[in-house]
């Protein structure tokens, strides 16, 4: 079985409106792919559909992870199977400490009757918090409650590091970050890059891709991938905007129809 996050002709709607209109994408293990696109092109919808959010309805198409049908799994099963979503707007969980939350998530990955080794767990978590320059006192704070934008995003990366997914989707992780926080977050992601892991980085701005250098860049427009290229494509988009890609795509569509 090929080791790949594979999306085939995916169509999905939210509140009766079709947003993804036949999306095709493959992120092989070991690669970092970026998805860019103008507002409203369906970037965040893709992230939510892959994670299994119930407000999003899959109309047709496939999504699989190393051959396993993602769409047939419950939200939590996808997570335990190795799918991770770093949220654009991470949710607050009042009264639940970061340590307890991550611990519960780790515990959920163990067999029935197996206990997490608390000492080893804290040691590991403190090490990763140090890497992400998160103060150790944060372990006792409620998840995302009263956090700044930058703190929330760093906590997302901490969770990703602690859960060691096979495939991670980062949904506009750069939004709301100043340059220092961006560098820390990028360093965290880069440290996780490995031949055994695939990343899909959703972003609006090229800036993030200076720090997390992608292998492949895709342009998403009106629910479809309309162009795929190397990392230089991101720079080109930054410089020239999206209009030329959209025009190029429209010309091609016309050519096909004719």
């Amino acid at each position: 079985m090929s080791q790949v996050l594979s999306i085939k002709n995916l169509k999905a709607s939210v509140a009766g409106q079709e947003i993804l209109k036949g999306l095709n994408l493959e992120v092989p293990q070991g690669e970092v792919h970026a998805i860019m696109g103008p507002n409203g092109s369906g970037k965040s919808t893709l992230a939510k559909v892959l994670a299994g959010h119930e407000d999003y309805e899959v109309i047709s198409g496939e999504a699989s992870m190393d051959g396993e049908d993602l769409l047939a799994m419950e939200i939590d099963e996808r997570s335990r199977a190795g799918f991770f979503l770093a949220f654009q707007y991470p949710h607050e969980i009042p009264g639940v400490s970061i340590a307890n939350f991550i611990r519960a998530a780790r515990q959920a990955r163990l067999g029935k009757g197996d206990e997490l080794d608390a000492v080893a767990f804290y040691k590991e978590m403190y090490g990763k918090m140090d890497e992400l320059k998160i103060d150790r006192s944060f372990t006792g704070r409620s998840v995302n409650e009263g956090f700044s934008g930058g703190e929330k995003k760093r906590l997302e990366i901490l969770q990703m590091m602690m859960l060691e997914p096979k495939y991670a989707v980062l949904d506009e992780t750069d939004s709301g970050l100043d340059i220092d926080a961006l560098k820390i977050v990028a360093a965290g992601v880069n440290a996780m890059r490995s031949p055994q892991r695939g990343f899909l980085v959703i972003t609006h701005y090229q800036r993030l891709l200076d720090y997390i250098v992608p292998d492949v860049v895709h342009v998403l427009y009106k629910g479809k991938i309309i162009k795929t290229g190397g990392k230089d494509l991101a720079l080109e988009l930054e410089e020239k905007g999206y209009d030329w890609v959209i025009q190029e795509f429209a010309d091609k569509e016309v050519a096909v129809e004719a």
Partner: protein
Amino acid sequence: MNQDTATAEAVNINQDVGDFSFPEDYAYDAGTGLSEKTVEYISGVKKEEKWILDFRKKALKIFEGKPLPTHWASKDLENIIFNDIRYYLAKGQQPTRSWDEVPDDVKETFERLGIPEKERKFLAGVEAQFDSEAAYSNVKVELEKEGVIFVNSTEGLREHPEIFRKWFGKVIPTGDNKYSALNSAVFSGGSFIYVPPGVKVKHPLQAYFRINAENFGQFERTLIIVDEGAEVTYMEGCTAPKFETATLHSAVVELVAMPNAKIQYITVQNWSANVFNLVTKRAVAYENAEVRWIDCNIGSRLTMKYPGVVLKGRKARGEVISIALANDGQHQDTGAKMIHAADETTSNVISKSISVGTGRSTYRGMVHIPKHLKGCRNNTECDALLINANSRTDTYPAITVKGNQHVTQHEASVSQVSEEQIFYMKQRGLNEAEAMSLSVNGFVNDLVREFPMEYSVELKRLIDLEMENSVG
């Protein structure tokens, strides 16, 4: 083994553990129904003095004369058939001091609930009541030497009338409400505690109430007197197996905190879903005394309980911290009463309730500060969490403050576990029940910290179990 597991194992009470019963074999049985004969029977078995029998008979009259409080409370009260209930069941046991002397089936019951083990681990004294009478009662020798009395109330009445009689029925008069009158007529068991001046009992005293028989009414009567400058923490746990028909638990608990005394009274109840739990709990606090009720209500068909403090002396402090979880078909009607009766008294009420499925939680609070007093303070906070769309919560805070030299503050909130929050947690690999459970634990977290470690671990486990069962 980590600390959490070790403690959880040390305090092994959960619903599944509690769901068993032994065949009934009682030497004393007052039969079903309630009449003067029932009262005479109970009093006779206990060989009580005449004043107690008179007290009971008078209470029975008051009970019969009082209407059900359904003009303000749940109509479900009408479903208690007083004539179908058995009011006194006992094996004829005298409470023993040695675990070995406890009858085998009773011993097995409490062993399965972890009672003697708990006593060895961290309690200063323990009393275990099986249906109507105490089966086991023990207090550590060093406390006895200091003059601490911890016995069941039957023994308290018999052996210590000089202390008992002075306070018995004084904090909660017989006619306070229909169920306190019922308890006063047929009471049996419960704890009697006296802590002499200046004695600070370091470890908690604990009582355990266990209903074993079907159609049974448990009516324990507890009286705790803590003399000047003395301190005690008392914890009670309650369970019953799951019977088909309704069971009634109607206790009266009176606390007396003399000047500068401190009492902390902790309840973790885990009744099965057919128990009517109608309990009257009140304390009186004299000058600079402090009374804290920490009350956790899980299970039962209907619980009505409003622990109160009468703040009778200057600078007395009263506090009620409560957590209620109403699962499918259950109604937790709980709250607090704070009666300010002296200057500079303070009261604090913090209540959190969780309603699951068709569960209903009601907060009823009463705070009374009269005009002639100065410098009183009250803080009331009640927060409700609704799990499902058909869950229900009501809040009836009645705060009467007269005069303008007081400070009161009231906050209430109702929240729902948001779908986005659950989605977020599931994306990290938690299933529906685990996510719900973590949210609910987070909601009550700041209150659970007030519980002793052993009980907070237990409470977390009970919440996990309730959420697991409700999500299915």
